[in-house]
């Protein structure tokens, strides 16, 4: 059941209506939300719903026993192995088989392993990280183990963020679950604004950009150099609107159910450094990687060499978390290299951090373009297509701008960048949440009109659902 389907809209309306009549955070409410979440996930696969419950039961049981265990580290290890084992089996088995086959083929070996018929469970990367954060936090003593399995099942299956985040920490979730229910009308209004804006980001912006992007990435050879370059910029915006649109809807729905989820995006393309980019892009994943991977690997506590190794490992594993392909490894490695170089080189250039506007613009320009460069590997179906696209882009230096084919998309992208900049200065969503009935109604009606007029014929699934 996709968020951008009538089925989901009807489902969400029904769930919100029933949930609002049940006493919030009490047993009946919890059972109802778990049941609704099961139905939501079950529309994709009831079999894999069982997998969620199995991993959740393991983590719940381990967390219960951590405080009394003689060797809590071993128990935590068991939880990590169980979670990563399931993730690795479903996500990386065939990747490893194909990589091994590739090596065998390259070295002239006569054997090849047949890939397994595995279907990747939707949302596995997200709920695995959430479960792991729970046991690690309990192990670290930052969170008391939850007594009620019902609460833990609710945390694991909560439908607004089950499929693609935001990756909510158990402590954030449970602290709100324990609070008495309070209705805040402004929050309801803010949630409705987020949901409306989220649908427009996804359907009107991302899905329309996808038309130009897909055309070029499917057949880069038949596109001009300028079309390829613009498609790369377009993908940068497509993935942003696709994922942040989904996140807005998820956060809005959670808010209507009484949970304030952490922000996941903060105008990432305004970043003037790579560190800043990762503080603005998929923020809940960034902090997960920082808190549970980078710091666990040593972080910056053991000298520059260890810091560099930790950074590279974190970013490569972060890339691999997105998908089982060498392209994601390259994407992660590129970001790792960017972060390392930023850490090593920029302190040696005195004027680099200058607040002088032209320097700030230069920093922004370089960061934005290197991010777009990395997106090529993220979007391209394989490594050779990525190289083909990079090679093709080189042609813009020798080819005049093909205005007829590209002017429309170029002006749209410039407009989107300008909007990105302006929106960061005027937090329209927050301001509207405090507005009266008419400004609010006008905004939402305008969003609905945009959806009526600019919904493309083809429905595009959310990009991050595949992870």
């Amino acid at each position, binding site marked *: 059941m996709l968020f951008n389907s*009538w089925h989901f809209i009807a489902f969400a309306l029904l769930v919100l209506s029933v949930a*609002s*009549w049940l006493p919030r955070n009490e047993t009946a409410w919890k059972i109802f939300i778990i049941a609704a979440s099961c139905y939501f996930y079950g529309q994709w696969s009831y079999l894999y719903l069982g997998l969620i419950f199995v991993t959740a039961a393991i983590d719940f049981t381990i967390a219960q026993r951590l405080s009394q265990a003689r060797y809590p580290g071993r128990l935590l290890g068991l939880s990590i192995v169980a979670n990563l084992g399931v993730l690795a089996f479903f996500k990386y088995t065939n990747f490893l088989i194909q990589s091994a086959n590739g090596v065998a083929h390259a070295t002239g070996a006569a054997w090849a392993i047949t890939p397994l018929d595995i279907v990747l469970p939707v949302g596995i990367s997200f709920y695995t990280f959430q479960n792991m954060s729970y046991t690690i936090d309990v192990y670290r003593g930052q969170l008391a183990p939850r007594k009620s399995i019902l609460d833990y099942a609710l945390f694991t299956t909560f439908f607004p963020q089950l499929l693609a985040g935001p990756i909510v920490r158990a402590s954030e979730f449970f602290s709100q679950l324990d609070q008495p229910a*309070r*209705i*805040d*009308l402004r929050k*309801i*209004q803010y949630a*409705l604004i987020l949901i409306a804006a989220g649908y427009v980001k996804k359907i009107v912006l991302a899905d329309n950009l996808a038309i130009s992007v897909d055309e070029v990435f499917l057949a880069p050879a038949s596109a001009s150099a300028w079309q390829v370059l613009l498609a790369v910029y377009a993908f940068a915006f497509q993935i942003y609107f696709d994922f942040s649109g989904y996140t807005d809807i998820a956060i809005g729905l959670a808010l209507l159910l009484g949970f304030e989820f952490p922000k996941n995006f903060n105008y990432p393309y305004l970043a003037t450094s790579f560190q800043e980019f990762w503080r603005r892009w998929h923020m809940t994943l960034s902090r997960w990687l920082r808190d549970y991977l980078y710091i666990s690997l040593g972080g910056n506590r053991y000298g520059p060499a260890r810091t560099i190794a930790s950074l590279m490992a974190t970013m490569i594993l972060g890339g691999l978390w997105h998908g089982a392909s060498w392209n994601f490894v390259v994407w992660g490695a590129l970001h790792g290299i960017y972060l390392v170089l930023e850490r090593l080189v920029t302190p040696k250039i005195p004027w680099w951090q200058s607040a002088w506007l032209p320097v700030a613009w230069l920093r922004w320009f370089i960061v934005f373009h290197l991010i777009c460069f990395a997106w090529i590997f993220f979007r391209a179906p394989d490594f050779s297509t990525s190289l083909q696209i990079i090679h093709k882009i080189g042609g813009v230096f020798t080819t005049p701008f093909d205005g007829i084919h590209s002017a*429309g998309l170029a002006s749209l992208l410039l407009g989107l960048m300008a909007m990105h900049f302006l929106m960061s200065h005027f937090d329209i969503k927050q301001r509207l949440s405090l507005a009266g*009935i*008419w400004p*609010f*109604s*006008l905004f*939402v*009606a305008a969003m*609905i*009109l945009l959806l*009526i*007029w*600019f*919904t493309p*014929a083809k*429905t595009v699934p959310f990009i991050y659902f595949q992870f």
Partner: protein
Amino acid sequence: MSAKVTLRFVLLRIAGIAFILLLLEAAFRVGAWESFAKPDSNAGMAIRIKQAVNMMGPEKIDFVTVGDSRAVYGIDHERVAALAKSHGLNHINASIPGMHWMSAELMVRWLKAHAPNLKGAMIATNITNFSYTGNGYYELGIATPLSSLSDASWMALHVPFEQKNLATYGSYSALFQYRDDITDLIKHPTQRFRQIRQYRQAYSNGAALYQSQKINSNICSIAKLSIKSCAAEPVSTMNSTIVSQCKSLVVQAANQLDYREFDNAAKWPHLAELKKVRQSQLRSLGFSKPPLVVLMPVPRIWRDELLPRGAEDWALSILRPLAAQGVIELLDYTRFFDEPEGAECNAFWDLYHQNADGQQKLTDVLLPVIQRQLYTGTKIRQP
């Protein structure tokens, strides 16, 4: 805060949003978008006819021709208008490419509501228009500027609602109907306003209501080919249009239906319903003179390979009883260019439409009938 307050808060906001959307829907329904619509789109063509009629003065209209692109290219409307004028009458052409039964009826209804002296109509159709309920969702474009809210169910009957196709929502909402038009305006704003200006000038004197479309080329290069072999023809500047049409029709040819047992309700349940709808539609036109229903010529390739087998008999089974009862005057020119050998390829410029030569030949035989059936004995309107 109580649940009652929350409910009131949410309901008020939903009401606010609904009010704004309904206001906009009403504005679109009364024609607020019509001045900006793309002149050569389906909606734009219907709007242009409305505007031209209003500029000319609807009370001056006596007769109207409605039909699809076969009527646009197949009849010399200037000669029809000239003949009417010689009888002191005014016969306009309101044919629009893509017009099917739903939009034709809505055009007639709109004219009857606005033109008090309208006495009769010529419905230029063809046997292909009887095989399907409607002409696809793009027919909604023609219909919307001519329709009112009460027509929604009639429109939905012809363009079935599909949940996944937002264009079909246009049966119920004008906001959905202008989706493509608005998208196109955003993409090409300067082009749109230039086009609107040009069309406004061209339509300012009402002359466009009598104009004929004339194309001189023919289809002799592929006349004896089947759809399959035509689609496989090497493309040249001479035949590119026809070869691309053949390519687009290959699937239809491969799935040719068989309507020869059209009376078998168990086999073809929708045909019995379709017959009822068409016949009641023609009965309800309500002109003092029976409307002329002209079956326009259709190339043999359609009858042999594309239309359901028996489609011609099926169409006639609908019309002949009405003609026998005097509800309509039926003029069947389906096979008009079958004889002599070679006439057909010289009478069409593509697989659908007659060329200038075919248009003149058909108009030659049509004019005396129009004169006899529509104009003779018609009381001339007082100026």
